[in-house]
């Protein structure tokens, strides 16, 4: 029964055109970024940096390097937007359209319904991240050769130079960790979606909270309190590109993200459970 209901939830989700906005935008944005890198001097500073650190630049101006560079802004801005859009829709859109009443006239508990929606949202997050990774590689491959990977993420002091094989493993691992970011923001949007609000309001609330957390995290005076900020733990995918992966820090953030998600889900569940569903 659960699998059937999940399949139905996915039909609903992927039957809507707006679900595909994220996929199309990744397709567009990554193509444009790859083109700009290919046909401008944008890769010059990167070459200089590599040469200054004693590496030959040419083998590292490659598919993996360009795909990883594209990943940073997409993960920071586009991914939260699209997962929040879908998460915000999950309950609020059904309530707005009236289909929630149709569902809740059936002998299904609100708890179960929300769990099914949450799992569907997580699957969407996974697929969106997968698309981000695959499109990144595909478009970079159109204009750049296969080779080693160079990653520079100054915020976390990451400067990584990898062989192609290791680079690919790190790239895949980075995306796996990125799923936690996508699923967490989706879960936050789902929480707001459970309140008696419009779908757009749920999306905006989730994005606002994410950006507020991001802003606070970046205020230098709040450095001692970074651990408390939700977004601080969303960056753990970036550590997959460190020369030496800080597994302790990743474990710490992962456990906190589990806590954040459980809290979002519990509050959403409580709010959804007590609210009256009216036409």
């Amino acid at each position, binding site marked *: *029964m659960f699998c*059937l*209901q999940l399949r*139905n939830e996915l*039909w*609903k989700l992927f*039957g*809507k*055109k707006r679900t595909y906005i994220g996929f199309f935008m990744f397709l567009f944005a990554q193509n444009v970024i790859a083109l700009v890198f290919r046909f401008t001097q944008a890769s010059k500073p990167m070459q200089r940096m590599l040469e200054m650190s004693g590496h030959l630049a040419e083998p590292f101006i490659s598919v993996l390097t360009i795909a990883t560079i594209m990943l940073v802004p997409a993960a920071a801005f586009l991914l939260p937007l699209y997962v929040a859009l879908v998460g915000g829709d999950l309950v609020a859109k059904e309530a707005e*359209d*009236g*289909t929630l*009443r*149709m*569902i*809740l*006239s*059936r*002998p*299904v*508990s609100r708890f179960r*319904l929300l769990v099914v929606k949450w799992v569907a949202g997580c699957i969407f997050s996974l697929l969106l991240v997968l698309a981000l990774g695959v499109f990144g590689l595909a478009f970079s491959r159109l204009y750049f050769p296969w080779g080693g990977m160079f990653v520079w993420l100054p915020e976390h002091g990451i400067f990584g130079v990898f062989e192609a094989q290791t680079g690919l493993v790190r790239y895949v691992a980075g995306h796996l960790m990125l799923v936690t970011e996508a699923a967490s923001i989706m879960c936050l949007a789902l929480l707001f979606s459970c309140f008696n609000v419009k779908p757009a309001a749920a999306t905006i609330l989730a994005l606002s909270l994410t950006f507020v957390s991001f802003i606070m995290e970046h205020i230098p005076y709040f450095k001692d309190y970074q651990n408390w900020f939700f977004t601080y733990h969303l960056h753990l995918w970036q550590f997959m590109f460190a020369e030496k992966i800080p597994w302790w820090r990743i474990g710490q953030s992962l456990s906190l993200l589990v806590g954040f998600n459980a809290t979002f889900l519990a509050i959403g569940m409580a709010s959804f459970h*007590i609210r*009256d*569903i*009216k*036409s």
Partner: protein
Amino acid sequence: MMLGQVWPTRGEVRVCGHDVMLRRTLALRQVGAIFESPAFYDYLSGWRNLEILSHYTAPTSRQRLQEVIDWVGLTGRERSIVRTYSHGMRARLALAQALLPQPTLLILDEPGDGLDPEGIHEMRETILRLHRELGLTILLSSHLLNEVEQLCTQIGVIRKGRKVFEGPTAHALQSRNWLRITVPDFAAADRFLRQEGLIDESRDGRCVAMSEGIRSDVIIRRLVEGSFQVSEVARDEQTLEDFYLSLMRR
């Protein structure tokens, strides 16, 4: 509230013997429901909508889906996107989703709302057919009292959240032997009939309630004998609307 969508401030709601708030799954297992404006996933086909909704109750076979689609008369259009359905087809789809779990109780909330006269007639016939062919107990909630009068055998009236009447429709329609008489001076005729002990009360300046055991021919004869010019006499039938309004005025 009966479907567990609105929480009561107090009290309990029992459906099919189970408390809806505490044992919702059990209570609604054999219940189908239709709302005044049924909503569907417009971007999906009718078939897909039925699959989605029915799976919240129990796994439903393709054969059962087809059976219900045939029963409601949507055959041939089940694979079309719901956005392309007419209002009447949406109403039929709503009926199909309600029938899928093979309910014993069907809750219809303003089923004729938004339908044109033809659609209302079709919906009425369908409801009667449901009762006749499938033997379902149907709970109809409606403000269209003439529809209720034509469809329901039992009625309940709720006023400000409290039940003020429950009983057979026939009982509600039963008037107290009211007779509508047309005479030049109704007040004089009223006095005369009361003196004769033939009526108990009168209303609206044209109707009289015959006393127990008195028939209309006796009233007419005495009026004629009393030199009243009787131009019209008719049995005053009470409509459900009259009954409802009388309850609301109390």
